[in-house]
């Protein structure tokens, strides 16, 4: 549309160049400004300071018996904490990591020296359902870990995907041992 309006003066070469430069400079400047002005609006949709401030949670492990699993809430999502038995750990380590859909050793998914404590996000990596297996009586899937009822993904005792449509292992959140019986997630 711009060219139609400027065509009448197309004959004046010298001033035309300067004019085009001015249009480009003003237009470019305006476009950069408009783009920059959008950022605060977009950024306002990112997590706010109060959300980020609450993004860590502490869990006392003392009450959890061997073989027991509990669920805690972190960032609005369930986190599975599993006090694994020796059998469950052995089952997780007997399989060669390279044969798995998402190769990862069990050792990489737990803290050294605290091998019985498995901490994973209870969110299926397929489409975000919460897998079964936390409560007694719920299906734990073919590998004794968790089973997602939405589309049939089976996770093992290390929370790794073994069968079904999920592409990745259950995510291990960032967490640290504050002391032997207290962890901080996030």
């Amino acid at each position, binding site marked *: *549309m*711009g*060219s*139609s*309006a*400027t*065509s*009448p003066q197309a004959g004046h070469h010298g001033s035309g160049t300067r004019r085009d430069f001015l249009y480009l400079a*003003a237009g470019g400047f*305006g476009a950069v400004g408009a783009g920059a002005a959008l*950022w*605060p*609006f977009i*950024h*306002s*949709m*990112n997590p*706010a*300071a*109060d*959300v980020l401030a609450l993004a860590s949670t502490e869990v006392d492990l003392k009450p959890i018996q061997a073989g027991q699993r509990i669920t805690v809430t972190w960032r609005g999502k369930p986190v599975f904490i599993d006090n694994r038995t020796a059998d469950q750990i052995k089952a997780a380590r007997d399989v060669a990591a390279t044969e798995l859909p998402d190769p990862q050793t069990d050792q990489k998914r737990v803290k050294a020296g605290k091998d019985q404590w498995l901490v994973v996000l209870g969110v299926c990596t397929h489409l975000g359902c919460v897998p079964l297996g936390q409560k007694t009586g719920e299906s734990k899937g073919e590998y004794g870990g968790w089973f997602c009822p939405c589309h049939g993904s089976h996770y093992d005792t290390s929370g790794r995907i073994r069968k079904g449509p999920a592409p990745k292992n259950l995510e291990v959140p960032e967490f640290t041992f504050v002391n032997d019986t207290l962890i901080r997630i996030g």
Partner: protein
Amino acid sequence: MAKDNAFFNNPTVKWIEHRLPIFSFVDHSLGSQYPTPRNLNYWWNFGSLAGFMLVVMILSGVFLAMNYTPHVDHAFNSVERVMRDVNYGWLIRYIHMNGASMFFIVVYIHIFRGLYFGSYKPPREILWWLGIVILLLMMATAFMGYVLPWGQMSFWGATVITNLFSAIPLVGDKIVTLLWGGFSVDNATLNRFFALHYLLPFVIAGVVVLHIWALHVHGSNNPLGIDTRGPQDTIPFHPYYTIKDAFGLAVFMIIFAFVVFFAPNFFGEPDNYIPANPMVTPAHIVPEWYFLPFYAILRSITFNILFIDAKLGGVLAMFGSILILFLLPWLDTSRVRSGLFRPIFQVFYWIFFVVCLLLGWVGGQAADATVMGIPLLRIGQFCTFWYFFHFVAILPLLGWFERPRPLPISISQPVLGGGRVAAGAAAKPMEKA
């Protein structure tokens, strides 16, 4: 002209144009195919500025709504959360909060431009009406928006303004209960005000489309107030007025940005940073500045008029002060549009302007204030009288008694009453067109 340029010959553009002629629609609406009087001055920038402000308000409002909770227990704190925790929340809220004031400044200037240059006169009466409808919708939207932070001014503003309707005979109290959704301004009121505050701007946008449509039928009025008589009187909207509007917009944004970044609470009332308390009314309750002239008119009717008591009289006068604008095209009997050629009208125009400012000032003062021994109430009453007197007496009579200055023959020949310089001046734009 546009049809044969490079843009419209682009194959992609052609493909789209054949199916949805959106580019030529824009070109005819705001582009090179929209002929515009060549003599518009900077007062004509304020229409596009108002459109810009509507977009800014809707955009910032949508993002605020994402973080706002319309509940009496959470509204105030959710606004403070926007100010303290949401990324750039303070910026978005200050833009929205001061944007309302900037929007009204722009629209009031736009209206006073129309009043001076006779933009309401035939054939633009419906264009003018649509403008008044937009103003009324803006007022409703702004009022309900001011309630949402649920501060002291929010609460008491809502209480006072909704109580205006109780002045209506017989059904007044029932209407107020209906507006509240209860027996006082409470959670139900806040909820519905939020719903309507979100809805009305889109209604405004719809009326703006009609306003622009009506504008395009006969084109813009111009400072001389005479009709365009052919291509020598007009220039294409693009690039001449697009660039002029863009420059005006940049200057306006400097002022807007200064308020947002360096005086964000200038237009606000400190009391609205106190959470709403239905048990305590603040000492000075005043509406936002853009309602002050109307507030002064409301308060100036302190006496019964025949069978109409003072309360109803005040409400009628307040609404009447806006509704009378609908009749303006017929109250102004002069056949000359532009105030430039009406020497006596000019004097009364500026008196009217000062009266409006005085009303605004009186509206912001305490009800029992005095200045130099004169009760402000009396000043407000005189100004209220003059406000209506201007419309129902001065304007109709001026049309009969005033002798306007001679009008120029055409826009491209702006020398009054003579044609000596005109030939040369008219020749050049003709080549352009």
